[in-house]
């Protein structure tokens, strides 16, 4: 009663009116994250490192609250209380089911990455803990906003919030030459790609008759008389920008260096959170083109997909550094996902979202394993993992599951994700069998380097580091980070669980896409 009375009086004020009219409640996760990052930022001013270390707890609390608010929002859809889609803040943000599902996956992934970061930051960057989580939360805020951004300006600001924080975090190990190099490379490539993307958006703005909203794009594009050359140019530029963000070949050249040089939790963040947000942005921006001139769009995305699958998988074959290998593997995965994007049907985009969800857990798990491996062996070389099963069998089991998932072996979620994705593309109008065949061949090639790591760990002769580990036995003073273990176990559960309950996950992502499809005036078939 009391609460109702208070909220009623609040709504009566002009600001309350504003919040109510503009559906600001649907931006709750973003608001929570903003407050959280201001709190961790305030903690970064604390004098002692003990106080600074509290920022991890605050960041975790904020993300969990954000997750809860997203689940509550989903409840509204589930019970039918929310209509198909709600436009927030003058149409800047679209609170449809797509944004809710994407943000749910994103927040889960972010919580996992927070768990990955804890020990790493405590041991390597103790004096800058507060700033680290502030920047991480800023990047996450950008990613969250990108999932629902329905306006070019909003999307660009969100993209830059994500990007600029990522550039800084990449170079966070200031005294490490590789980290600094990675940061510089990422900044220069990122700046150029943002400029190209912005040029493309400006052209679209002109074609759409002076509106920045994605919502008017379908109508504007179908009316514009001389769509041909200008729209193609705009699409090429936008795809170049998106290609950079999702690290698709030939815009992938930054990926291996940045992934190798940056702090490992940040590598995981870039490969999971950035990629997911960029794909949702691509879905929102490109679905309006599904009706008009879609053959060109599909062809271009298909080309990007083929390039990425070939370059990623072939280059990964020769890698000896585990982080670099995972970097090339994410390029290859961007290729598979682009195959789904190219078809531009409701089913293929639903399958793409499901793929992204499984990818979040498999890839975070793989990076968590790489971090544990780094702690155990003090090396990122694959040869150091040789014979590890004799010392740490459970770790080898978990890592193998993630690698099998990434390779797309049955029982793991990775298999079902790939299966649903390729199936939906085959069934679509624009489905190109050639692309599917290349995708299947590429997956086969990828088996080699994923299974090679497992082979090395299981039947290889124990390496120096592993022999030391075996020698230490139970006397080892080394203790595994609890948060890291928890993150690995959660990733393991989801990697296996999403495989078993894959059908349900697919249904949710498909309904998310159908809701999104409803908002773009049935352009999707």
């Amino acid at each position, binding site marked *: 009663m009391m609460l109702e009375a208070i909220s009623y009086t609040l709504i009566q004020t002009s*600001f309350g009116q504003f919040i109510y009219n503009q559906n600001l409640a649907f931006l709750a996760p973003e608001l929570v994250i903003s407050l959280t990052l201001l709190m961790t930022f305030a903690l970064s*001013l604390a004098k002692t490192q003990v106080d600074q270390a509290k920022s991890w707890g605050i960041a975790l609390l904020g993300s969990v609250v954000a997750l809860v608010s997203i689940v509550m929002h989903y409840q509204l859809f589930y019970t039918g209380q929310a209509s198909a889609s709600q436009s927030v803040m003058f149409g800047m943000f679209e609170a449809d089911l797509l944004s809710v599902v994407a943000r749910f996956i994103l927040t889960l992934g972010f919580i996992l990455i927070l768990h990955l970061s804890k020990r790493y930051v405590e041991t390597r960057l103790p004096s800058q803990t507060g700033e680290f989580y502030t920047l991480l939360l800023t990047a996450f805020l950008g990613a969250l906003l990108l999932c629902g951004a329905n306006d070019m300006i909003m999307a660009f600001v969100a993209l830059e919030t994500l990007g600029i924080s990522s550039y800084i975090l990449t170079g966070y190990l200031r005294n490490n030459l590789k980290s600094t190099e990675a940061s510089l490379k990422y900044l220069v490539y990122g700046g150029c790609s943002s400029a190209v993307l912005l040029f493309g958006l400006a052209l679209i703005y002109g074609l759409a008759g002076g509106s920045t909203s994605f919502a008017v794009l379908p109508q504007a594009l179908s009316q514009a008389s001389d769509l041909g050359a200008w729209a193609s140019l705009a699409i090429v530029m936008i795809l170049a920008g998106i290609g950079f963000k999702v690290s698709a070949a030939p815009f992938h050249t930054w990926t291996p260096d940045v992934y190798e040089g940056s702090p490992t939790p940040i590598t995981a963040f870039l490969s999971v959170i950035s990629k997911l947000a960029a794909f949702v942005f691509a879905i929102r921006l490109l679905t309006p083109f599904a009706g008009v001139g879609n053959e060109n769009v599909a062809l271009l995305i298909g080309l990007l997909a083929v390039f990425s699958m070939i370059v990623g998988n072939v280059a990964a074959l020769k890698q000896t550094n585990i982080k670099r290998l995972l970097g090339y593997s994410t390029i290859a995965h961007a290729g598979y996902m682009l195959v789904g994007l190219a078809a531009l049907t409701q089913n293929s985009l639903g399958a793409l979202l499901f793929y992204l969800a499984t990818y979040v857990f498999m890839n975070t798990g793989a990076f968590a394993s790489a971090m544990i491996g780094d702690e155990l062996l003090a090396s990122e070389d694959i040869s150091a993992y040789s014979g590890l099963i004799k010392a740490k069998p459970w770790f080898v089991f978990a890592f193998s599951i993630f690698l099998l998932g990434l390779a797309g072996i049955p029982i793991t979620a990775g298999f079902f994700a790939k299966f649903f994705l390729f199936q939906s593309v085959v069934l679509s109008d624009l489905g190109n069998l050639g692309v599917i065949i290349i995708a299947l061949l590429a997956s086969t090639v990828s088996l080699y380097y994923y299974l090679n790591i497992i082979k090395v760990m299981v039947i290889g002769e124990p390496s120096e580091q592993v022999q030391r580990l075996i020698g230490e036995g139970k006397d080892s003073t080394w203790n595994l980070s609890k948060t890291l273990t928890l993150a690995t176990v959660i990733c393991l559960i989801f990697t296996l669980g999403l495989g078993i309950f894959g059908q349900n996950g697919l249904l949710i992502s498909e309904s998310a896409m159908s809701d999104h499809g409803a908002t773009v005036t049935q352009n999707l078939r």
Partner: protein
Amino acid sequence: MHLTGYPVFFVLLLFCGLFPFLLFAISQLVQIKRPTAYKHETYESGMKPYGEARIRFDVKFYLYALLFILFDIETIFLFPWAVAYEKVGVFALVEMLIFVGILALGIVYAWRKGALRWQ
């Protein structure tokens, strides 16, 4: 050009552009010339000039340049706010206070971390 008031601006710009040349020209015309070797030396606040003019600067200045450009961008946002203030009212005031408040935290941070302290 449809905006009013700019011809005056351009005339002022022209005047400002020409003024320094005018000063130097007058100086050249009026001055008494009695050159000596010392008068031809580079003036460096009374110090004896030595070394080259093009030296490498300490990288610590870069922080000031970066902070400057960030607040420069903030000014860009303040400018339309000031122009449109009469039309957008209290709502914009609150929005601007949030905006400036968040950026002011940045200053507090810089201060607290000693970024503004001369080393």
